[in-house]
């Protein structure tokens, strides 16, 4: 039982990262029905940007005191802004032209984009894993037999906080309403005077910024990063988005945490090597048996 609870904690923090990435996937898919293959790599870029900012700030280890808050905020915001801009640029360069093309075209382009990003990062910091500063003091919290690292709490708190902010934005602001309208019916939204290009760019901005936040958090959590991280993490986050119901924000969150749990449990019960296989099997099973995911609605075909 204790083992279970421990893995629950581990899974939730893993899941927090996946949830943040999954939110971006689900938002972008919701608005232009594109699986943004490059999204996982934007997440890795977030870690890389964070690393660069920390280096600029001269942070190589733990930061204490009020300075810690400044460092965390500056780095995370910096990563989010840079990633957000990256997302906007990618959309503008690679996807916008193909908005009306057969859907395979932007998907192939997205794959190409992903490859480009991965290789740029490989050039930037080399092919081997790179250490990431610890940044936050990380005392363990003990609840009975379960050990919770502070950074695990950070991940979950941050993920939930960002999601609350996101929901507020999407459901309470005019821009958010424009996003929802465009996602439901692009032509009608356009006829209502909504600027589609801006709305879509905004979606990419926010989605990619969230991935950037995930990147920062991941750097702190794992203590290292690698140019090829985004591929596996991206697939798992996409699985999370599908599991929760693609297009559904709460679903992405829920899916993220579930996938984190599944990965933690598999690593514990079977082995770390099989966790990828299990997660991808989840993807396959969900798409076969309940493609609308947990929180999505079943859409019957209209002929």
């Amino acid at each position: 039982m204790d083992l279970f609870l421990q893995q629950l904690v581990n899974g939730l923090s893993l899941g927090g990262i996946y949830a943040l990435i999954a939110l971006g996937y689900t938002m972008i898919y919701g608005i232009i029905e594109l699986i943004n293959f490059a999204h996982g790599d934007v997440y890795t870029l977030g870690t890389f940007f964070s690393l660069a900012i920390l280096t600029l700030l001269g942070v190589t280890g733990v930061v204490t005191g009020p300075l810690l808050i400044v460092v965390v905020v500056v780095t995370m915001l910096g990563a989010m802004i840079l990633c957000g801009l990256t997302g906007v640029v990618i959309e503008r360069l690679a996807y916008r032209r193909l908005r009306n093309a057969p859907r395979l075209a932007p998907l192939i382009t997205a794959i190409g984009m992903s490859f480009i990003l991965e290789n740029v990062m490989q050039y930037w910091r080399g092919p081997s894993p790179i250490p990431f500063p610890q940044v936050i003091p990380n005392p363990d919290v003990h609840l009975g037999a379960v050990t919770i690292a502070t950074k695990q709490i950070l991940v979950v708190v941050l993920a939930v906080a960002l999601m609350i902010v996101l929901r507020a934005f999407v459901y309470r602001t005019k821009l958010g309403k424009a996003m929802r309208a465009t996602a439901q019916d692009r032509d009608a939204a356009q006829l209502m005077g909504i600027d589609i290009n801006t709305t879509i760019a905004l979606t990419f901005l926010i989605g990619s910024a969230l991935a950037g936040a995930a990147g920062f958090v991941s750097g702190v959590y794992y203590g290292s990063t690698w140019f090829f991280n985004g591929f596996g993490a991206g697939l798992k986050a996409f699985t999370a988005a599908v599991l929760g119901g693609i297009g559904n924000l709460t679903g992405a969150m829920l899916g993220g945490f579930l996938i984190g749990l599944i990965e933690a449990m598999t690593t514990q019960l079977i082995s770390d090597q099989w966790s990828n296989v299990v997660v991808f099997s989840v993807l396959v099973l969900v798409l076969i048996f309940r493609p609308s995911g947990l929180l999505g609605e079943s859409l019957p075909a209209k002929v």
Partner: protein
Amino acid sequence: MGRLQPYALFAAAIVLPLVFSNGGFVNFLADAGAFVLLALGLNVVVGFAGLLDLGYAAFFAIGSYTFAMLASPQFGIHIPFWVMLFVASGVAAVFGILLGAPTLRLRGDYLAIVTLGFGEIVPQTFLNLSQWTGGPNGIGSLDQPAIFNFRFGFQALPYYYLILGLIAVAVLAASNLRASRLGRAWMAIREDELAAAHAGINTTTTKLAAFAIGASFSGLAGCAYASKLQLVSPDQFGFNVSVAVLSMLVLGGMGNIPGVIVGSLVISSLDRFILPQLTNFMHGFGISIDLTNSRFLIYGVILVLTMLFRPEGLIPSRQRKAELRAGPDVLPAEQTLYTEAAP
């Protein structure tokens, strides 16, 4: 393609390594040939039937490992090479059906992701089941083909002719299929799956046939390539390989056999000739950048630029060009989450 052109080109291909008999070049030709075979196989799935398979390397892995396990010291089984061609392509075809089956009701992009997932699961599984597959080290000392008393040995030339022969078979098979009842059924499903069903086309068996036949080509390639390389290991079958083969199709012209062959040769040449030459060229200008490590970056750029500016590829089929340039509201079938809602 004129009627005589294919034969002329084939004759040229036969003569080529005799004229340019540099060992390294012939070796390159043989390897490139194996990838032509793979590209032709993926072309059946993606180009003919319109099923975007992002995990095609999985079938290459299955074909190669089948060969490695049944024609090597690994289990002491030594099925003759020429029989293995049938066995490996058969096993690959069966897995084509198994891995294709879950994707049948899925729409294009979801289908792609599921195949991608399988593309990850299969090599990972081969890696994990190390008692049978040799784990990360793989299986070596694979059997070599022999014709009567001639054993293939370690020269590339006989492998080249073997692969050329397999390519000829594949090209014949693919063009026959395209101009047939099955080929039309594939095209119909690609255009409008619902209308195809109403024309009496069993979309399930038709799609599975595409997966099976496409996979069987990689079974052939697996035998030839593995026995030439004398080694099978999991890292030969990663996502990079799937994307490389896909790039060959995208660049060359999906659905068009000559285009696919050209695309494949261009991408193979990229690695072997173009990038090293470009690197030297850059060095000549004092720019010391090593482009030979950037092959995946180049693939990515090729994919993006091709889809943006010439989506029909270098040598397109007339049909594909029209499809991809047509713009919105032409392909009606992709409106909804599912393809057929029938039970």
